[in-house]
């Protein structure tokens, strides 16, 4: 089954804001798009070149890589409304279709 949402979360080390962002985001996506996402967590201290490539200015930054269009949410990730809007989860859950055209949700 292919994953629908590809997300990238940029954080800095294990700062309080990083821990809060991970916890909060996990809570939201596990509830909203469970089993339909891939989340990559990137520590800018460990991988500065990746942050540079993605032009990260601040952490935490959540990037919705796909589905298009790509979107970014910078700063506080505790606001469910902001996350839902950024991930475009405002509409009714859409039916996802895998490569064999089977409806999977």
């Amino acid at each position, binding site marked *: 089954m292919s994953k629908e949402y590809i997300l990238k979360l940029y954080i800095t080390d294990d*700062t309080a804001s990083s821990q809060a962002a991970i916890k909060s985001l996990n809570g939201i996506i596990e509830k909203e798009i469970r089993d339909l996402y891939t989340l990559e967590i990137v520590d800018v201290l460990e991988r*500065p070149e990746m942050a540079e490539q993605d032009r990260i*200015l601040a952490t935490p930054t959540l990037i919705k890589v796909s589905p298009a269009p790509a979107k970014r949410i910078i700063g506080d990730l505790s606001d469910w409304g902001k996350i839902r809007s950024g991930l475009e989860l405002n509409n009714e859950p859409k039916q996802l279709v895998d490569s064999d055209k089977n409806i999977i949700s």
Partner: protein
Amino acid sequence: MIQNKNLQEIHEEACLSACLKSFAAMSKLIGQQTIVDIVNPRVKNVKELAPTVGLDKTAMKTAMIVVSLPARGRIEGNVLLMFSRQDALNLCDLLFKREPGTTKEVTELDKSALQELGNIICGSYFSSLANRVKIKIVEHMAQIIFDEPFEKMLERTIEGLAPNRDEVTALETEFNFSTPGFRGHLFKSYFLVIFQTAQLEMILDTLQEVPAI
């Protein structure tokens, strides 16, 4: 001290705007991408204040390097941006594109660069705040203070604003940042804004009278 939801939101917005603007400017200045970690801004009682810039329990007694930017006029306050001594030395390396660990003592030129950096960060905060609350904030000259314990400096700053601690409100956050030039290192700074409570209350009341657009 005010515990006001509106004030918390205003402080959060000003911090976010200030850190994005000022660290973008810093990235240009040093020719490296600077990434700032946005720590949850807080409104606090002055009695509870203690900086967390990589310091231990003795933080209140520990000497720090501080850029102070006073504001006078309709609202009287002061912004303090604090670094541990080691991070101030690291910053000098960064600002002058020296190899990490080169600066052992701070020269007059280093002081001036640190002061300018503090001016950019503190000034961006005042500017964002002024736009948000629709008042003019008149900044005075930024000052750099070396090796003074936080506690002493805080006392002095409060004395300059109000006769006692109960008459001021503190807004704090941390601006922690990293750059590829100092791989694996997190620069930690503590950012504190102190205002006269009565003036702040008046401004917040005025804001509530104006309907949101």
